[in-house]
Every structure is written in structure tokens, then in C-alpha cells.
């Protein structure tokens, strides 16, 4: 912990220097198509990047003389993918509870030197929202990943999630935000409900507290940080909405399962966005296939998609799964948003990433074709103006 503090200090001290150095680096990418996600597609476009940020984007842009030019006349540029809810690279979360541990931060679990991060980077992911489990990890199962609903992690308020880049040699290089959101793992029973309610009520009565066990909840209650709630079944969602009714400023994001479509009415009423696994599902207890992301989108619920399996293979398969969803009716534009800007919005980090817009981080993918074409190859991955991955 002390080491991390030192690192942060170091970063602040050297921050000015590094930005100064980066200022020299201007990059211009000339591409066949630039899919901004938020403001349409630019044919034969140019992106100018300086200081790791997008300085200009469009057709008739003057390229500064000093710029290093990446000329890819037959390629497509797409924003880096954002997975809003993952535990990739982390140990299996602790089981047990219910408890309230908002002071627990998932960044303290970070373990950067992992091949998994390199490989999901190669799969196009430039931003990951990491979910906290409980007080540190008790067991180490790196290969299994974290399947929502399969095992049951600890319940209650499980801590603060982090937003990271899957690159870097130490935690500080990975972290975009170390306290991006508060995480609740909900279960519909009186014990879990009481733990959550009493923690929130006590935070409500101490709004100016700096106690690390209270402060994150105060931010969550004021809506300054989003609150992610893991809540698998539609019945539990009804219980959750009732429980959190009095705390109406909270910005809720549901990390939900495939039956969420049964409660779309309630979700629309409260404008709650949902993170769903990118997968064609069976309607429960039937052989009928359903496209849940499509159903929710058509009901006007905002959706973000995550890999169905939270491991490397899941991330590598992700774009293909998105293509399948589009093939069976999910709106193509929504599908693109659901893997970039929507998850960024849910993580409240859309002011700096999630789309190709002026002022945002230059997190982008150089693709051989359309991102949702299954034949497309991810050729280069750029995070904040630096090429961090090149396909062999």
C-alpha cells in the first residue's frame, strides 16, 4: 500500500515532465474509414493525435509538419473496446458475507504482469472495469476467470471498482481510475438487504465523513460515482429497485443476466442501464433462442455488452459474438455503442474515452475491415497515442 502511495507521488512529480515530452509526439492517422461511434463514419479521414489525445478528426484536416504519419489507406479505425465488468487477471473473489466493505479497493488486488492482459489487448480491449470481490483474495484460480452467477462471490457492498488499461508494468501504468464505482452484490434476502440498507443509511447521516468505510458510499449516494449492482435474476431486480428507492440520486448500473428482459418496464421507468453478456440465449426452460440485448434495446433500455466468459477466450471471441447478435437483429449502431461509448458512460469515464471525438484519449483499433465483420483482423491497438499491440 505504502509503495502505491509512493508511486502516486512519483507520478505526480514526474507527470509534468512526461507530458512535456509527449507534447513533441504528434501522430496523424490517415485511414479508409473512421468509425467514431458517436458522430458517424468518416470516409478517407484523418485523426491527429497529440499528447495522447485526439486533437482533430475529419476529412479536410491539416496535418502538422512534425507529425508522424500512419498511412493506412485500406484500414478502418474504431475506438478501443471497453469491458465494463470483469475480473480478468484477478483471483477468484472471496465467498461469504453479507458484509459492507466499501473501503476495499480492487486496485489493491492488481497483478499487472500477466499474459492475459496482453492477449485481451490483442482482442481490442483498451479499457476494463474491474469488479471488487471481498477483502482480498483467498484462493488463486487464474485460469478459471469469473463466471457471473456460476459461483457465488461474497454478497453485500463488496468495494470500489477500478478502471484500468490492460497494459503496463505496474499498477500505476494500468490504472485509469482507482475508485471508479461502488460495487454491490445483491441477493434477495433480508440479511443482504439489511447490510446494504444500514450501510447506506449510516452514510446518508454522515455525508461529510472522510471515513474510508463511509466516504465511497457518500459519493455513490450523491451520484458522483456510479454504483454497479450484480443482480442476476429478474425477481431480484424487483427487490433491488424497491430497496434502493429511497436513495434516488444513486447512479445505478445493473450487471445482469439473461432474464433481465422480464423487467424492462421497471428499468425504463428508472432509466437504469444494463450490462449484459454478449450471447444468444435460450429463453429459460425452453429451446427458444432469444437475443436479450436486442430485446432490451428495442424496449429502450441502455445496454453495454461484456464477454460471456470472463477469460481470454471470451474476450477473443467477443467481436464475433457481437456480430452474431447483430445478425439476429440487434441494431448495428447500438451494438457498436454497446461495446464502446455505452460502457464508458456507465463507468462515468465517457468524458475521456469510449468514442473517437476531439479531446478524448486516442484509444483506437486499426482494423482490416468493419469491426463486426468476422473476417476482420485487429492489426494495431493504440492506447493514449501509443501503439501497444501489433498483430504478428
Amino acid at each position, binding site marked *: 500500500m505504502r509503495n502505491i502511495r509512493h508511486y502516486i507521488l512519483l507520478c505526480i512529480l514526474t507527470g509534468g515532465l512526461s507530458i512535456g515530452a509527449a507534447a513533441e509526439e504528434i501522430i496523424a492517422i490517415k485511414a479508409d474509414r473512421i468509425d467514431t461511434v458517436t458522430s458517424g463514419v468518416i470516409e478517407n479521414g484523418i485523426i491527429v493525435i497529440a499528447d495522447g489525445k485526439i486533437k482533430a478528426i475529419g476529412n479536410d484536416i491539416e496535418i502538422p509538419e512534425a507529425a508522424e504519419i500512419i498511412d493506412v489507406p485500406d484500414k478502418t479505425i474504431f475506438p478501443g473496446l471497453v469491458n465494463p465488468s470483469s475480473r480478468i487477471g484477478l483471483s477468484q473473489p472471496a465467498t461469504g458475507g*453479507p458484509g459492507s466493505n466499501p473501503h476495499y479497493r480492487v486496485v489493491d488486488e492488481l497483478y499487472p504482469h500477466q499474459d492475459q492482459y496482453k492477449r485481451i489487448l490483442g482482442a481490442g480491449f483498451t479499457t476494463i472495469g474491474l469488479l471488487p470481490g471481498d477483502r482480498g483474495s483467498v484462493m488463486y484460480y487464474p485460469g478459471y476467470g469469473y463466471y457471473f452467477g456460476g459461483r457465488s462471490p461474497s*454478497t453485500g457492498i463488496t468495494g470500489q471498482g477500478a478502471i484500468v488499461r490492460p497494459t503496463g508494468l505496474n499498477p500505476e501504468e494500468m490504472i485509469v481510475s482507482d475508485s471508479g464505482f461502488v460495487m454491490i452484490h445483491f*441477493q*434477495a*434476502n*433480508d*440479511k*443482504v*438487504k439489511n447490510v446494504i440498507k444500514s450501510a447506506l443509511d449510516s452514510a446518508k447521516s454522515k455525508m461529510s465523513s472522510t471515513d474510508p468505510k463511509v466516504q465511497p458510499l457518500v459519493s455513490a449516494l450523491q451520484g458522483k460515482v456510479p454504483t454497479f449492482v450484480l443482480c442476476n*435474476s*429478474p*425477481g*431480484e431486480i*424487483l*427487490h433491488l429497485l*424497491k430497496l434502493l428507492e429511497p436513495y434516488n440520486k444513486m447512479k445505478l448500473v445493473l450487471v445482469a443476466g439473461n*432474464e433481465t428482459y*422480464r*423487467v424492462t418496464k421497471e428499468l425504463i421507468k428508472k432509466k437504469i442501464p444494463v450490462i449484459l453478456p454478449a450471447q444468444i440465449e435460450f429463453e*429459460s*426452460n*425452453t429451446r*427458444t433462442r432469444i437475443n436479450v440485448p436486442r430485446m432490451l434495446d428495442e424496449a429502450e433500455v441502455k445496454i453495454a455488452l461484456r464477454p460471456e466468459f470472463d477469460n481470454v477466450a471470451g474476450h477473443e471471441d467477443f467481436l464475433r459474438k457481437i456480430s452474431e447478435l447483430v445478425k439476429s437483429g440487434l441494431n448495428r449502431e447500438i451494438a457498436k455503442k454497446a461495446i464502446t461509448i455505452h460502457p464508458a458512460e456507465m463507468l462515468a469515464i465517457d468524458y475521456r474515452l469510449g468514442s473517437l471525438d476531439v479531446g478524448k484519449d486516442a484509444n483506437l483499433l486499426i482494423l482490416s475491415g468493419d469491426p463486426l465483420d468476422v473476417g476482420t483482423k485487429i492489426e494495431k491497438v493504440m492506447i493514449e497515442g501509443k501503439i501497444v499491440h501489433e498483430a504478428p
Partner: protein
Amino acid sequence: MLLFTLAISMIFIVSPLSAAEEVTAIRGGDLYTITGGIIKNGTILIKDGKISGIGQNIEIPEKAKVIDASGKVVMPGLVAVGAELGIIGYPNITKIADSLDPFDFSVSLALASGITTAMVSTGRPSGSSPIGGATAVIKASYGDLDQMLVKESVVQPVMISNRDWLRKTTFKQNLRKAQSYLRKLAAYQQAGDKKKAEEPKKPDGLDAYIRLLRREVPAVVAASTTGDILAALEFVDEFGIRMILTGAIEAWIVAEEIARRDVRVVITPRQKQRPNEDISGPSGSTLENAAILKKAGVKFAIIPPSTYFGTGGIAGRDMMALPMEAAFAVSGGLDEQTALESITMTAAEIIGVSDRVGSLQVGKDADIIILDGHPFHHKTFVETTLINGTVLYEKSKSIYFSHITNDE
């Protein structure tokens, strides 16, 4: 904030009122009222989720939504005194209201089976404690959490049997402790103004026993053999508690004893048990169990061997064939009326909700099922299920049953 809450609650209050103007009528069916015989070609009016009229000469309001049940059987939704459905949030459940799941698959199957009300329970006794977990009576109001709970803590499951002497002893000792506390409390309260003594302190952990002694809830005791049944009845004699005996295979042998103590019974007529050759006197199961209990004046409910709902498993053994189980009792000599009561009105009485469900009577909840034949016929299907006046199941729209037709 307060105003906002008020405004919100106003909306909720107003909407049922506007719905109250809407009247639903079920017309043309044979109404198996349970409490008032069979009304041929009758009409039921439903208003505000309740039955507002029933009979042959009922005028249907012009704007009423009419459900045609000509040639069908219309009866109250079935009541199961023990079933597994509608609960999520395992494993930390202590209060069922906090863990109800209106989207449970079993809830939808309950509707398809005509079961509209059921008692659910969770948790088992731990250690030497004989006291079981929580219970609640719920409705199969699919998709509607607010209408699901009817009543909580309706009975107190207790695990005592002659083989489980430790629990049985604990039960007796704790009942005595609770009894002595209640006596002291009564004496203290009787003393009135002359109060000098201190109010007796309520002993810890005996709430369940106090409720039993005050006859607020009945104890539910699993007792299949004559020995277990008689041992359980001793508790009724000594402590005056109310009691429900479940799985009472040998109840027919001691029917008079059970009747005398006004103890209720839950049976599964097809359940078989060989006579015990080691004991003198009668033992074992008989198909006539229900008929004998009826003759002795015992009130009983019927449930199938398995209390879950499923499309798999051995067909006919689970909750989806509840009327068939009652039909077994009929084949053992029970009259049809009592058999019907055992899965409707009597079942509702046993779990304490007969004021709301269990029969077609004015003022009761409009939990109604429409069948395409006699409830005890093996070919009969539930066609429509209503809960609180709302149609929640139609066979013609069911992905499981709509393709099954009666070829005659």
C-alpha cells in the same frame, strides 16, 4: 421529498381504483363453488380483484370484459399446503417476503397446474433445535411481486419424532419453560394495581414456543406411523397447542384420536407403506386413509408425493398433478366433494387463508381456474387461470401445453 413520496403513492392508490371500474365476467360454465354446491351454467362477476357476484341470474354489466366458459368447469384456484416455488436469494433467507421471486419458472408451472395459492417454507432445524424455518403463504402471481405474499409465518414447522429423542426432549423442555413464563406473566398482569413484583423477563429464544402456546400458529409435525402420531398428540394434550400432522400414512388407525383433538392432517393417498410385522394391531398404508379420516371428522388436505413443479421427472408425482392425488382418495372411497375441498377450501383453512381463497364466494379473491373437464378426469387441462381477477395463464398460449388437444 415527502411531497414526492405522497405524489408517487397517490399514483399507486389511484390506479387500482380506476381498474375497479372494470368488471370481468366469467359466463356459461359449471361453477364448482366448493362451499355452495355446483351452479350449472352460472356467471361470476369480478370487480377490484374480488368476486363481486355469483349465480345463474347475474346480469353482466355492458362494459364488462367477458370470458366465455360455456361447457367448462369453473372452480377456485387450487391450494397446495406445501410446495416449492417462488423463492430466490438462497442461502440467507429468514424472511420469505424478502426473497419472493415472481419470475420463478415454478410459478408459471403452478399457474398451468391450476395452483394459485401455496404454502412455501425454507430452512431446517439445526443442532438439537426442533424448530424449523420460515413459512409463508404465497400466490402464483407471475411477474407481480406486490401481489405475491398472502401471509407470513402461518405455521411453525417442528421436527420431533420418536426416533429423534433429543429434539423431542428439547421441544418439551422449551415448551415447559415458555409455559411457566406465560403463567408468571398472566399472574403478574392479573395482579393489576397491586404490582409489587417485577414483570417476568421473557426468556431468550422461546418466541416460537410462546406463539405455539398462545395458539397463534399451529405446529407442523411430520408423523407417518401410529407411534409418531400418538406421540405428537401428547403435546396437544399437555400444552394445548394447535397441530398439523403431515405425511400421516397411518392416520386412519388413530383417526378418532386425531379428530378428538381437532388436529389437522396432510396426506398423500397414493403413498404406500407395508404393515409392520413386529407390532400388534393394524399398521401400514391404505388407500382408504382419506375416507376413514373423513368419517371420523378429521379435516385434511392432500398433496402429491413430490412438492416441486417440473416438466421432467416421473409424470404425475409432482405438484402438476395435484387433482390426480385427490382422485386417488376418491378411489379409496372418499366422496368427490371432500376430495375437492382437500385441495381448495380445507387446504386454505389449514394454512390460515380461507378468508381469502379456497372457494367461489362473493368477497373472496378472484383466484379462479377454468378447466376443460371434470377436475378429477385424467384428460382434464387447466385452460385459464386468474389471480386477483387477472388472467395470468392461458393454455392456448402456453408453449408447453397448447399443442395438446383432446381427440374425441
